[in-house]
């Protein structure tokens, strides 16, 4: 079985398991909605200034809600020693990692695509005006979040306070990707296209995703066999 096919099988297994139980995706969606609601207590959700910071608000929601999905990525394998079975299976650590990252990516992206219209309605933000570009930013930002979150999930799966450790580990690392996503999302939900001045952020996000995907694929075997 080829590398990509192995990763595809792992991703399909994770998606099937999640869609049967809906544990992570339900809690993540509910959490996203609760945070969106709580932001509206802190300031006037319909004020013009809110639109200016809407990119930041959205990505804070995505990062918090995404953590719930990412925490489950490897924790899901703990009952019945499934993780030992996966590591012993004739699948490389990199394929296992890539499969799990792809499954988490699709789940987090799903949560985002549900949260986005809710955000648009509650905060009166016309987010559909630049949707293709916004989707590109969502994909790049979410892949960065997912790839760092999945390797962190592998690191924290067997340690104390894993639910606390994962967000503590990933948020400082994600600073460049999240800041880029926030800046670009703020531009796009305001109805403006990505201008020449914003390409630097886009390149930063692509570079971040490429670097951390490559390093994670190279080091995940070390994490899994330790």
């Amino acid at each position, binding site marked *: 079985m080829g590398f990509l096919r192995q990763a595809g099988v792992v991703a399909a297994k994770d998606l099937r398991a999640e869609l049967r139980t809906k544990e992570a995706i339900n809690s993540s969606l509910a959490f996203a909605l609760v945070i969106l609601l709580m932001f509206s207590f802190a300031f006037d959700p319909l004020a013009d200034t809110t639109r200016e910071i809407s990119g930041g608000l959205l990505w804070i929601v995505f990062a918090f809600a995404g953590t719930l999905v990412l925490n489950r990525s490897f924790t899901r394998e703990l009952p019945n020693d499934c993780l030992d079975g996966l590591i012993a299976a004739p699948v490389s650590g990199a394929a296992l990692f890539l499969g799990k990252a792809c499954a988490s990516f699709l789940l987090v992206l799903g949560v985002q695509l549900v949260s986005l219209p809710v955000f648009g309605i509650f905060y009166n933000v016309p987010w559909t005006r630049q949707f293709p570009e916004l989707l590109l930013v969502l994909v790049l930002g979410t892949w960065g979040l997912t790839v760092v979150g999945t390797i962190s999930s592998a690191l924290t799966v067997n340690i104390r306070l894993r639910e606390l450790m994962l967000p503590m580990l990933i948020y400082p690392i994600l600073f460049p990707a999240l*800041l880029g996503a926030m800046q670009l999302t703020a531009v796009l939900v305001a109805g403006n296209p990505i201008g020449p001045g914003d390409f630097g952020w886009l390149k*930063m996000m692509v570079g971040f995703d490429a670097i951390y995907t490559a390093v994670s694929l190279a*080091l995940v075997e*070390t*994490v899994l066999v330790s």
Partner: protein
Amino acid sequence: MGEGVLYYIPLGGTAALAAATALIASIGFLRTRDFRFDALASAASETVLAFLAAGIVSGCSVVHSAAGKWWTWDARMTAALICWLLFATCLMLRQAVEEPSRRAAFAAVWTIFACLDVPLVVATAAWWKPGPTLPIDWTWPRFGLLAIMAIAGGLFTAARVRRPEPSHPERAG
């Protein structure tokens, strides 16, 4: 103001040297599985935290004397704070893992992740806050102070290097 300007640059420079040491030691551990590299990486990470914290405090004093407040989201201050958090998470991860070989491997992986993030954080902070930032003017006295600080950082690291602990016999029974 001059005092603060004098100190935060060499403190930051020493922290950068310690971060490079931690990166090299982490790669060395993953290649050789020699726990002396792990001990060096751990000590160098502690040096980064100590010197960067001192640099941030020094930067705060510069900001305070110039602007009357203790913190501005200046590019260099922001980057220093994020880098401090990156290395703090490396040490938190060390504390959370009990088994020594797993702790060393995980910490090495995360130190590599943190070090790769440092240039991205510095560039991102500079794009985010392109306005006036803390002054950096490299002149010979500052190179001299950097050399002294680097020696102090080396001594601090050497003092913090612990003998590797492969097992805990008292827990065996």
